[in-house]
């Protein structure tokens, strides 16, 4: 593939057709097209409306608990003996992850559009819990599609969603994981298009979702920038985050894309290894079209989609947001991958050394911090996005480590 031309800004995408280079677009059934165009117009109007922006800011402060701290991880820094490591503490948000940043924006938009029925897909359950939470907060009907396999392995989150008043629909089609939950949510949307708002959980799907979700998550990077300037008097030298669909990563990265001094790393889930079962779309997939957008996907030589595999249900998706695909091809972001075993080791290390149990998703980023940090000089500043807490993963990790709870 020829290297695409470098743009003047890395932050101006997507174009009017929802494209980031060749990626993105609107690959959906005709039934949904009028709705997607309506959503695009409603979002454009809302983001320029000071009342909408102020309402979101108020809920960020009082309901989510923002800004989240930018925390100097002193013990991890000492442990690796290289650069200074900071953690952006998104796991301290209400509901325990960054997912709520996006859901708040979409739910406020749904209210403006007069939609009272909200549907969502979820893998690990974090996006489902965030959606159920905000639907409870605003008195909206909430239906969450979740693969039957994920329902079984994420029982605590299923119960949380039900406590919050949501209906959880176990999806029995296909491989019964996140991709099938997204298919089923799209089928619901096609059927109930007039009344229903589809709250997508990551920077994927048809335009305008990848751009809209990125904008809602960019609060992570905007705060990081301000906090770093206040604490260190300068920008960080590198950023690192785990990437499934890639919403926490793009949220941290986007405000820094035009700062050439900042190195940026995304970490995909390499599962059992890139030559075996994994969920690393960029490192082990190729460009294709699924769920409304063109992006890197895991598939066979006939274009049939393959299952992702990761120890982390939140990274267990055979695709990635289209903007990441573009940032990869254009060389602005470097995409690495971490295996299940590396993530499991980092999960334990971070818990013991820093006193923070990370989500298994973030443990993938931590695994690569462990590799990169010792190679950097002591005055280098690295920021890792700690996008979720590990409480949800404790039963699974206990089982893997052979501990009976």
């Amino acid at each position: 593939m020829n290297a695409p031309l470098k743009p003047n800004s890395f932050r101006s995408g997507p174009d009017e057709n929802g494209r980031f280079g060749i990626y993105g677009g609107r690959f959906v059934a005709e039934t949904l097209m009028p709705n997607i165009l309506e959503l695009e117009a409603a979002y454009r109007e809302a983001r320029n409306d000071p009342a909408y922006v102020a309402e979101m800011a108020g809920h960020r402060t009082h309901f989510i608990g923002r800004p989240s701290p930018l925390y100097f991880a002193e013990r991890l820094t000492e442990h690796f003996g290289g650069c200074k490591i900071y953690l952006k503490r998104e796991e301290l948000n209400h509901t325990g992850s960054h997912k709520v940043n996006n859901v708040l924006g979409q739910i406020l938009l749904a209210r403006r559009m007069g939609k009272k029925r909200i549907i969502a897909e979820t893998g690990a359950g974090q996006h489902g819990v965030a959606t159920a939470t905000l639907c409870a907060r605003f008195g909206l009907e909430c239906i969450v599609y979740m693969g039957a396999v994920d329902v079984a392995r994420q029982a605590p989150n299923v119960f949380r969603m039900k406590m919050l008043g949501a209906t959880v629909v176990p999806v029995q089609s296909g491989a019964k994981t996140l991709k099938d939950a997204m298919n089923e949510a799209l089928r619901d949307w096609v059927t109930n298009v007039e009344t229903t708002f589809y709250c997508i959980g990551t920077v994927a799907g048809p335009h305008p979702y990848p751009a809209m979700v990125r904008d809602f998550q960019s609060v992570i990077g905007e705060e990081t920038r301000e906090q770093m300037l206040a604490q260190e008097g300068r920008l960080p030298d590198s950023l690192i985050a785990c990437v499934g669909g890639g919403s926490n990563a793009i949220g941290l990265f986007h405000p820094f894309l035009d700062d050439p001094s900042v190195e940026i790393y995304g970490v995909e889930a390499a599962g059992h290894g890139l030559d075996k079962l994994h969920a690393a779309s960029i490192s082990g997939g190729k460009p294709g079209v699924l769920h409304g957008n063109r992006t890197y996907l895991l598939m066979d030589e006939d274009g049939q989609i393959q299952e992702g595999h990761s120890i982390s249900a939140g990274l267990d998706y055979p695709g990635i947001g289209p903007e990441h695909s573009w940032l990869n091809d254009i060389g602005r972001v470097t995409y690495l991958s971490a295996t299940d075993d590396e993530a499991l080791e980092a999960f334990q290390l971070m818990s013991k050394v820093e006193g923070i149990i990370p989500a298994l998703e973030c443990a993938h980023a931590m695994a690569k911090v462990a590799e990169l940090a010792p190679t950097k000089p002591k005055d280098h500043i690295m920021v890792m996005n700690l996008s979720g807490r590990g409480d949800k993963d404790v039963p699974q990790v206990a089982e893997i480590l052979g501990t009976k709870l």
Partner: protein
Amino acid sequence: MTTRLDTRFADLAREGRAGLVTYVMAGDPDRETARAILKALPGAGADVIEFGMPFTDPMADGPSIQAAGLRSLSGGQTLKKTLEDIAWFRQGDAATPIVLMGYYNPIYIYGVERFLADAKAAGVDGLIVVDLPPEEDAELCIPALEAGLNFIRLATPTTDDKRLPTVLGNTSGFVYYVSITGITGAATPDFGKTAEAVARIKRHTDLPVAVGFGVKNADHASAVARGADAVVVGSALVEALKGSLDAEGKATAGTVGAVTGLVGSIASGVRHARKAAE
């Protein structure tokens, strides 16, 4: 340029009756049985054949067609084999139009240019690609039209008068009106409203309008046929096929007959309809 679809719809108009468009999935439940069904469809009363290209993630299809796609894929069906199946069919039937229906990714991975050349050579007449709305016409629609294939678009109840010209813009062959907002094989529509919708579309185009989604039997087909140029039946045929399989999901001696029997019954409903209306 006149295609097999143009010729067939002109013949139907001359006969003064609606046509029957039948959907079956390539490779379902196995390649040989699917070929036998394909070959038997025109004799059973199908005027146009839609041949499904299986895909792992059919986001606009209900459980029946999802399951058919997985049966087909687990039997090793590929896009290349599907095109070979059509070339095989063409050896014995030069007149019945065949429309390939499915999703974009397998075509994109096959390579658009190569796919269009191979499809044309195999005797394919048109394409229905569910996840390519007019906004993505540059991907496949325009190249397909240039290659001499019809590109058939779906219009839905959400396609209002403002959007219809966009949808009809590069459509050829016929317009496929999806009678419900929903997935294939879902609820039965209100056929009175369907006729109104067809009339609305016809104010914007001279193309024939076929109506599908929710047509399950001869009575439904007959009701739809009174107000449309053709009736599309898909999930009901796929369900009939499924009902004929053995406990392991394999074809039985009754599989081909289960599909052609239902096609015959629905075809008589379609043919009876126009007479009833006259």
